[in-house]
């Protein structure tokens, strides 16, 4: 990395060093100094229109916007003073005079910057006695709704569609206090990243149609996770209610992976968690106990003739390790497969990967399957008597080559979390119920080779176990010599 020139500045008496080109607000935020802001967003251009981030800079007669002022050597910044606070109080008052103050029915309540800053800069009583401006309500697109009267016209959403999605559906119409955000005629806010506009909206103007009126946010527990829907591996925050139900998924900042964005598909994919779940293992289509199922599975493999283990690119790295161990213990052949690929969707500030698997890199790095599709094709050509399938792909798209492998097999052992054609086929001997990534601990290696681990965000609602555990126990059962006593002790 090229050596960056560092500049010295003083903020509220603290000496800081920041790289040249840093804005005052970023210098403050990076050093834990809070400067309120609405329009500023670290991954969008500077608009400097909300005017709440005003700070005092020594030697400058007027207050300056922290977002639009680059740090200069020797700069002395005061982020709180009477002048600064008065200016911010003025801005807060202006922002609220035409605001409907409809917090009780606003989706943003509880995570609204207008509410947050009101604690510090708000007035206890309004002084505006005139008639408020009422603006339109609109459906911007399939996933986003707009409450004009709540809008503070910070233009974050407009800048998002200009700079990150590049789709330019949004603009400001009218002027002055009649300004509204609107979609251009004949357009809809329907790009695959549209719901990021909801995240960037600092108030309740743009709201998610999916989450609308689903829950008050203070009833939700925010849990860190990651999105398994493609090989990007966006970091996410999963909001789960008190009944152990996912209410929404939003991106979590990770500058190495997804910055602050994620695609709509990823955030809306979670309903599969509750769909057609396998409640417990099945032996020949009948529900069974885990010990019966594991015995049956081990027997099937032991007597299985030529055994092959198919590992999907949705399996966690840990499950892949165990699959490798099982293959070694049983002499089985390994092959990989994944959900079908499509084209990458490239936007100016974000790419949605066409590889719809979270862990294709894991197959390569852990199981040395350089090309999953080639390994599947080879397997289809060769055939196997018994197939162990570690699936875990939601909505189970079955590639034709895989179908051929399964059809040719005498017996199949499936590890999956939901019922599907895969688990119902006639030659399926045992189905071992697994858990989704929302209920598991594990890790995925993304398309760039970055391994990211995740923890459960939901308590399991089924009797399923993680594929990793199931595979490990199969290894133990089939080749006690390879088993690790410590593991057994742990399980006891």
């Amino acid at each position, binding site marked *: 990395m090229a050596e960056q020139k560092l500049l010295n500045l003083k903020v509220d008496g603290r000496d800081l060093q920041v790289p040249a080109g840093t804005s005052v607000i970023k210098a403050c935020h990076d050093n834990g100094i809070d400067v309120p802001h609405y329009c500023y967003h670290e991954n969008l251009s*500077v*608009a*400097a*229109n*909300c*005017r*709440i981030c*005003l700070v005092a800079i020594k030697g*400058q*007669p*007027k*207050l300056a*916007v922290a977002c*639009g002022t680059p740090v200069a050597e020797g700069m002395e910044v005061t982020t709180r003073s009477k002048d600064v606070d*008065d*200016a911010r109080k*003025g*801005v807060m*008052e*202006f*922002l609220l*005079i*035409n605001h409907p103050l409809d917090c009780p029915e606003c989706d943003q309540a509880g995570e609204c910057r207008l509410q947050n800053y009101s604690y510090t800069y708000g007035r206890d009583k309004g*002084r*505006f006695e*005139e*008639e408020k*401006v009422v603006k339109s309500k609109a459906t911007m697109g399939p996933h986003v709704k707009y409450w004009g009267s709540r809008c*503070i*016209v910070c233009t974050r959403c407009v800048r998002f569609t200009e700079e990150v999605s590049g789709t330019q559906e949004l*603009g*400001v119409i*009218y*002027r*002055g*206090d*009649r*300004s509204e955000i609107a979609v251009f005629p004949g357009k809809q806010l329907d790009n695959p990243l549209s719901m990021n506009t909801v995240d960037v909206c600092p108030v309740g103007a743009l709201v998610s149609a999916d989450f609308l009126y689903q829950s008050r946010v203070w009833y939700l527990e925010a849990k860190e996770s990651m999105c398994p829907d493609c090989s990007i591996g966006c970091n996410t925050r999963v909001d789960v209610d008190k009944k152990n139900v996912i209410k929404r998924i939003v991106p979590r900042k990770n500058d190495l992976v997804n910055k602050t964005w994620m695609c709509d598909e990823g955030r809306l994919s979670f309903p599969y968690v509750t769909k057609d779940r396998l409640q417990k293992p099945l032996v020949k289509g009948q529900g069974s106990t885990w010990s019966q199922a594991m015995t049956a599975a081990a027997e099937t493999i032991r007597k299985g003739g030529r055994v092959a283990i198919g590992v999907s690119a949705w399996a966690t790295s840990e499950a892949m390790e165990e699959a490798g161990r099982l293959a070694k213990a049983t002499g089985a052949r390994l092959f990989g497969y994944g959900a079908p690929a499509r084209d990458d969707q490239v936007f100016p500030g974000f790419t949605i990967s066409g590889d719809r698997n979270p862990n294709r890199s894991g197959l390569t790095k852990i199981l040395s399957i350089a090309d999953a599709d080639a390994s599947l094709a080879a397997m289809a050509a060769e055939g196997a008597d018994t197939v162990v399938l570690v699936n875990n792909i939601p909505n189970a798209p079955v590639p034709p080559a895989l179908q051929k492998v399964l059809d040719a097999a005498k017996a199949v052992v499936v590890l999956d979390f939901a019922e599907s054609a895969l688990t119902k086929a006639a030659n399926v001997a045992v189905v071992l119920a697994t858990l989704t990534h929302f209920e598991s601990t594990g890790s995925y290696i993304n398309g760039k080779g970055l391994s990211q681990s995740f923890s459960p965000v939901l308590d399991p609602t089924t009797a399923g176990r993680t594929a990793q555990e199931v595979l490990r126990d199969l290894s133990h059962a089939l080749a006690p010599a390879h088993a690790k006593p410590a593991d057994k002790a742990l399980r006891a």
Partner: protein
Amino acid sequence: MAETTATPPAASPSNPVAQTPVSAGPVSPSPVAGPPPAAAPPAPAAPINQVPFEPVVSAHFGKPNSHTIAYYEGHGGYDTARKFIGTPQAEIVQTVKDSGLRGRGGAGFPTGMKWGFLAKGTGKPSYLAVNGDESEPGTFKDRYILEFDPHQLIEGVIISSYAIDCHHAFIYLRGEFIVGYERLLGALNEAKAKGYVGQNIFGKGYDLKITIVRGAGAYICGEETGMLSSIEGGRGYPKVKPPFPAVSGVFGCPTIVNNVETICSVVHIMKNGPTWFRQWGTEKSPGFKLFCLSGDVNKPGLMEVPLATPLSKVIDHYGGGVKGKSVKAVIPGGSSSPLIKGDKVADITMDYECLAANKTMLGSGAITVLNETRDVVSAIYNLMRFYHHESCGQCTPCREGTGWLEKLMHRFHHGHGHKSDIPLIWEITRNMQGKTICVLADAAVMPMQSYLGMFPEEFEAKCQD
């Protein structure tokens, strides 16, 4: 003549304090962001404006066919451009600097100094953007130039563009200007046909393209960066400064923004020299200027007079005297400028320093006279309606504050004010002032504060309690 005499304290593109050039739109308001601080009321040792003055920029206004190239060339038109294209550019810039010409759009920033700020060696083209948006209420001087002497403007553009090494100039016109647009377009086509605009001008190897851009009826597009956004095809939102246009202007390239009248003055300065220009006006306000006189005078209209002409002379001599009994107040420099009370009129000379010393400004040169019958509350309500309507809506304080002030003034206008509203008005104006990207908020606040400060009794009379 020392070139520094006419320049304010050192300013640079990175110093936002010293450089806030704006044009016919909102004019620069606050003493810190506005024109260079003026010295104490001028006490010139030598009497000023002793040299008889004949109109220069407006010399041909109203003459038949004055907008045609035949007429213009018949009166020495394009001779100045022909003479100076091909000469060292730095000398032209120096001449303009020496003249002390200050921007005629409103802020009064020294033109030569502004040209000197143009970023060099950026690898990007430089642009000249001429501001003909002229939308400050009361101002109608550029309109006359466009309608009666468009070739003068084109010649000025040729000289100025050449001086700053620009090969593509934009002239931005207020959308409501129909005749002015048609005449400027006609004049541009005539000049192109003669080879004065286009490739290899006057055979001197200099190329210049001029594009006329029409606005769509927004006051804010007269603010220089709002105008640049509009030229770029965007919404007329003013841009965050720094960077200033001279560093990063239209399309992100170094841009000089000058008012129509400023550019026209350049022609005459180049033709006659800076010493000639400095025969009139004061050391810091040299030359002459177009003034637009309106309101309660017997002869409203456009006039061109030397700077530092007494306001009383403007009203009584050129304006035929006040209509009515007496002057209650004067708006000296467009609707954004604070008032001058009637009893102070005798002390005022129309130059940048004197008006600044009286806490107001020369602005665009739009003088509006209010006589004793005028209702100050009604007048400010009208202005607040204007600023509310014209706020672009980008910055919170202006977007919300202008609307709030209009609604308050609406109540006062209808006699429904409250005494408690008056301190509120003061606080709203303070919360708007100096807290926005451009100076429209300040332009709205200055008259509000001025009217309320000078005539509090009239506001109190409109209160119910």
